[in-house]
């Protein structure tokens, strides 16, 4: 989240908050407030929807707590229905996340394979000061480890800074920071990308056209991401900025450093989300306590919230459950799209007074979305892009890494359904991806090459 600061070389920010998968998490919120305003009800409802979509846990928790607070018995019946619906939608969620991740990876791999710029070594970021052009292997390894340490500590510092800002309610600062960083992504990086693509295909474009194109692209992107916009357009923009960010990483990270960084960041992600004092976890819990959606522009969401918010039962019984849901919802930060959430929230709030109260069952039928942090997109794409760029086995390795990452994502979503709390999305996928990359490059490639040269089939 701590994305871009004012300096132009703050590219690694996105790594931070974005890297977690939230599940219907459940630190049960003991404060059942009866007099919930309609807006909160709406929010919570939407939250509940999102939550229910991703795991079964909250349902059970909600069901349990509701009966605990004396709510009608239909909750238990609801629970079973919830479970089944969750399972049914579970597969849908997996697909809903597969498509954007796949798209992002395709964009990155296509660019890497065709545009020379992103595979040329033109210097390094200041965050990885040690060069890898050293004669000895040991020296190179040492340099890459040092680079990693520097990078990870920068990320940790940024994350902690962001959490502190959030804790002390410096919202304007955070919003300004995010807006600045997405401005930079949308305008500067797009300009560079477009320039390189045009160069590769030898297409001429004059500056006025370029200006108009980039201006429109960037302005619409800012509006879509930070304010309101059609869901698909927003998703497309988020995928594009993730791909751009991943391309920057692929270009500017030296080889060994990139792999070590990928490994280190998945360990960091694991710790930051699961340890009690981890910054990401604290961020999530703070947001839960305040019943607020987290930041805009850092999370990809796959479903509309206002459709969810349309049917809102206003019964007092819903109050506590919604509160719980809400709290649990915020836990799911990294997978949620705050910007989307925000835009939806405002729509929900405005629409609350006019919507009739519907039954709980009807609510269950509505679309539930899943959310994934953009940092996850970025690092998945970095892994696949690096595999495409540097592997000599070319496409086999890329394909193997791609399948490995998707399976890791599947497993993570499964764990999400089981544990029902914020989960890091990086570790399993990146581990699988790394294992498959190294083993495919070194073991499978000679085998397949020999088979292909003799035209044997297995």
């Amino acid at each position, binding site marked *: 989240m701590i994305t871009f600061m004012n300096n132009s070389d703050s590219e690694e920010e996105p790594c931070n908050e974005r890297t977690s998968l939230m599940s219907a998490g459940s630190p049960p919120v003991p404060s059942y407030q009866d007099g919930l305003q309609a807006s909160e009800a709406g929010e919570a409802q939407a939250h509940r929807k999102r939550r229910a979509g991703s795991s079964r846990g909250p349902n059970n928790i909600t069901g349990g707590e509701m009966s605990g607070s004396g709510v009608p018995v239909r909750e238990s019946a609801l629970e079973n229905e919830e479970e089944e619906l969750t399972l049914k939608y579970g597969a849908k969620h997996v697909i809903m996340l597969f498509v954007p991740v796949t798209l992002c990876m395709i964009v990155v791999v296509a660019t890497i394979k065709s545009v020379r710029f992103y595979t040329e070594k033109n210097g390094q970021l200041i965050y990885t000061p040690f060069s890898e052009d050293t004669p000895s292997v040991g020296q190179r390894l040492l340099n890459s480890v040092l680079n990693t340490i520097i990078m990870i500590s920068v990320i940790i510092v940024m994350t902690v800074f962001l959490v502190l800002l959030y804790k002390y309610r410096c919202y304007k600062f955070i919003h300004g920071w995010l807006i600045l960083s997405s401005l930079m992504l949308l305008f500067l990086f797009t300009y560079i990308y477009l320039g390189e693509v045009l160069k590769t295909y030898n297409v001429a474009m004059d500056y006025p056209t370029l200006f108009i194109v980039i201006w429109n692209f960037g302005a619409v992107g800012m509006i879509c991401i930070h304010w309101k916009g059609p869901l698909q357009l927003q998703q497309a923009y988020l995928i594009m900025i993730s791909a751009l960010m991943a391309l920057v990483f692929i270009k500017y990270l030296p080889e060994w450093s990139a792999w070590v960084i990928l490994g280190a960041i998945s360990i960091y992600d694991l710790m930051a989300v699961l340890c009690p004092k981890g910054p990401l976890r604290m961020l999530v819990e703070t947001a839960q306590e305040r019943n607020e959606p987290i930041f805009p522009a850092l999370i990809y969401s796959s479903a509309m919230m206002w459709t969810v918010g349309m049917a809102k039962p206003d019964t007092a019984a819903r109050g506590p459950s919604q509160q719980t849901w809400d709290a649990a919802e915020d836990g799911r930060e990294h997978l949620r799209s705050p910007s989307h959430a925000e835009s939806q929230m405002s729509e929900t709030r405005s629409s609350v007074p006019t919507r009739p109260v519907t039954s709980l069952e009807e609510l269950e039928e509505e679309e539930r979305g899943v959310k994934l942090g953009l940092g996850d997109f970025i690092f998945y794409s970095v892994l696949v892009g690096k595999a495409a760029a540097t592997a000599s086995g070319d496409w086999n390795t890329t394909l193997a890494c791609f399948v490995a990452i998707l399976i890791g994502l599947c497993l993570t979503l499964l764990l999400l359904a089981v544990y029902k709390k914020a989960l890091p999305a990086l570790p399993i996928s990146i581990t699988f991806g790394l294992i*498959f990359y190294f*083993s495919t490059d070194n073991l499978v490639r000679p*085998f397949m090459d020999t088979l292909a040269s003799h*035209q*044997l089939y297995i």
Partner: protein
Amino acid sequence: AFFWLVSLLLSSLIWFIAVKASDPQDERLQKGLLIFGVMFSVLLQEAFRFLYYKLLRKAIEGLVALSEDGCSPISIQQMAYVAGVGFGLMSGAFSMINLLADALGPGTVGIHGDSQLYFLTSAFMTMVLIFLHTFWGILFFHGCEHRRWWEIAAVVIMHLTVSGSSFCNPLYVGSLVPSYLLMAAAAAWAYLLSGGSAQNLRRFLLCKC
């Protein structure tokens, strides 16, 4: 697809170790090792297909337990089909994708005396393998479901035969023809196992016209 990939990984690991441990100059030994590698890989693939079947079985039981009316939303036959398609796609992708990438670039096929039909035959062979994997998936799962070990054995033997026939390359008639015949047989068998029959087929074709 993932399971196929893992099986490929393990089999190439074995082959790699064997190659590294042996004399790189000895042509016959290398060829022998390659054959061994291929056969081992086939057996490993089938073993992983079996493991995948076990996993899916557990998943279906879980789904059935959770569903309202006692039947799972997806049947084992559908899963068998999907598993077969996954295996086939992965195998086909790994076989063809480097070839396709090279085909995009400049070059002449068979300039060093190899067959000029390399790309064509590779394409056909890959296609037949993908289809075969799909049918084998159905047959295999059906055999596992109904405890008919001879069906499973038939699948394994068919796979070994097809892979073995590819050793005849570049004598393509020795590999493509048997493979296509086996594919037709497997297709008919899988169709019958999935509940199809000559009447169904005729009705389907007649309705279309």
